[in-house]
Structure formats: structure tokens, C-alpha cells
């Protein structure tokens, strides 16, 4: 287990999350995949932090967690508003801004 293996795991999780955002249709699942990507970034931050022997990466990971919490709150509120109006959580149905 080299320290770099943590980074490899972070890349794997990030790529899987990105694929999820691209292929899934349910808006909640897309949100969860975004969370997965943010978690992967956090893992990379913590791994680099322990590689370089200082705590800056851990502090940045902490800030990422705060931003992710705010993002989830607003995102899920938007999702609820859309669901109330359109009775669907699919991103294909929310296309009013397209035309």
C-alpha cells in the first residue's frame, strides 16, 4: 500500500461518480453521485495531507464538507419544488428552460 494508492482510489470513485452523473436520469441519484465525487476529492485531500505531513489538506476537506452540506440542502429544496410542480424527479422532464 503506497500512499499513492489512496489517490488511485479517489480517482476511481471520482470517475464512477462522473459516469453516474452522466448516465442516470433520476435527479436524486445524480445528487448522490455528485456527493460521491465530492467524497473522492476529500479522500485525495486527506491523502495529500498525510503525504506532505501537514494539516492544510484536512482543513480544505473540512471546508468541502461544509460546502457539500449547503449544496445538498439547496439542491434537494430545488428538487422538491420541481417535483411539486411536475410530479416527477426525472431530469428529462424538467426541460422548460430549454425552449
Amino acid at each position, binding site marked *: *500500500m503506497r500512499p*499513492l*494508492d489512496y*489517490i488511485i*482510489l479517489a*480517482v*476511481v*470513485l*471520482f*470517475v*464512477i461518480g*462522473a459516469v*453516474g452523473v*452522466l*448516465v*442516470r*436520469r*433520476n435527479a*436524486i*441519484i445524480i*445528487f*448522490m453521485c455528485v*456527493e*460521491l465525487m465530492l*467524497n473522492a476529492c*476529500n*479522500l485525495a485531500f*486527506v*491523502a495529500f*495531507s*498525510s*503525504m*506532505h*505531513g*501537514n*494539516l*492544510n489538506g*484536512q*482543513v480544505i*476537506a*473540512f*471546508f468541502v*464538507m*461544509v460546502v*457539500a*452540506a*449547503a449544496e*445538498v*440542502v*439547496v439542491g*434537494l*429544496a*430545488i*428538487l*422538491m*419544488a420541481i417535483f*411539486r410542480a411536475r410530479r416527477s*424527479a*426525472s431530469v*428529462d422532464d424538467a426541460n422548460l428552460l430549454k425552449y
Partner: protein
Amino acid sequence: MNHGFLQQSLADGTNADAITRETIFWILFILSSFAALGMIMVRRAVHCALLLAVVMLSLATLYAMQGAPFLAFVQIIVYTGAVLMLFLFVLMLIGISSADSITETIKGQRLWAGLVAIGFFILMALGIGHAALGPPVHQTDALNGSGNLTGIAQLIFTTYVFPFEVTSALLITAAMGAMVLAHRERTAPRPTQRDLAARRLASGHVAPEPPPGVYALHDAVDRPALLPDGSVAPESVSKAISQRVVEEKPQLVSNKEVEQ
């Protein structure tokens, strides 16, 4: 408790020896990768949330192994505890049975997404492989000299104090945004008791709706009631229940079975 031992175990994250750490790392590597793969494969959003919980708990363990006990606990409490519960609450509101459609709306989207993902992974792996990272510093003293929590607090309240203050503004804005988005303006005045009574008289059903269940045979709430003339009253079953029952066992509430 020996203070030196505690310090050592805090500094290394865990006090397990190298082989145990290695084993735990690779188990968690495989577990979290497959759980993440499952997230993009499963159809139901609830299963997706549970797999996300598995990934998050694995990551919390990995943080603890890397000498970040504070982040490990924050990961469990804030992410797995609060954020994931929020996801589950919204899933309950939207409908637990909201399965994702598996039809492709854009032709070849999955193929291209997979190709882009593989390309991106190769790019990142090559980039990391070629990066000159230097020899790894052993983090024992530098990272957790006077305790992980103290070190993080020192950084947050000295170097990162301005981003920390901005974070509070962000959180307040997010809370306000959620309140505004969740607010619903009442467009029609609230119906009074007189209005409700008039509506009920006009509908012709003055008596309350018949409750579900044919008490001589079954008293389950998914059984429609029999009216005095022997006919079936399908409206006696709650809409939520009939929807769920039809979805899972379509033959359960057929009228013919009730009449027998």
C-alpha cells in the same frame, strides 16, 4: 492509559501493524469501488442511498487510517448521519418507488459516457504516475504533534479564518434559499368549516367513506370494503396502499377475489 501509546496511536491513525493496515486498505478499496459501481447500476434510489452509505463509511475508515480522526468522525456524523438522512427524507417525500427508467434517451449515451470515463481515468492515472511527489514525509510528528483536533483548530482560526467566516455566510444563504424554495404561497383562501360542509352535501356522500376491510374474512387495510348491497367499494382503500399493493402483488386486490 499510557500517554505515549495514545500519542503514537493518534499519530498513526490506528495502532494496527503494517500488514493489518494493508489488508484493511485493500478490503476497503474493493468494497468502496464495488459499492460505487453498484450506485450507478441499481435502479431504485433507496438502494443507491444505502450503497452511498457503504462508500462513506469506508472513506471514514480510510480517513482514520491516515491520521485524520476528526475528519473520520465528521464524515460519519455529518455525511452518513445528516446528509444521507436528508436524502432519505426527500426520497420518502418524492415516493419510495420512484425507480429510474433504464431506457436510453440519447442514443449511445452510456457507451460514450463509459469511453469518456475510461479516458479520464487513464489521463488521471498517467498524471499521478508522472507527478514528482517526492519521498513521503512520515506524518507522525508533523501532522499530529499536539493532537489532530488542536492542529486543525489552529489552522482554521489563524490561516483559514477568512474562508471560515465566509462559510458561515454560505450556510446562512443556503438555509434561506431552502426556506424560500420550500415555501408555498396560498393562492386561494383557506376553506372554512361551512365551505367544507357545503362541499360534502353537494358531493352526495354525507356519511363518511366506508373503512377498508371485510371484517368477516380479512381485516387488512388493503381489502376494499363491501357496501350494504354487496358491491365492492374500491375507494375505501387508501390510494397510497392500493398503489403499492398493485405494484408488488397485482392479484391481491382484484374484485373477484373479494366477492368470493
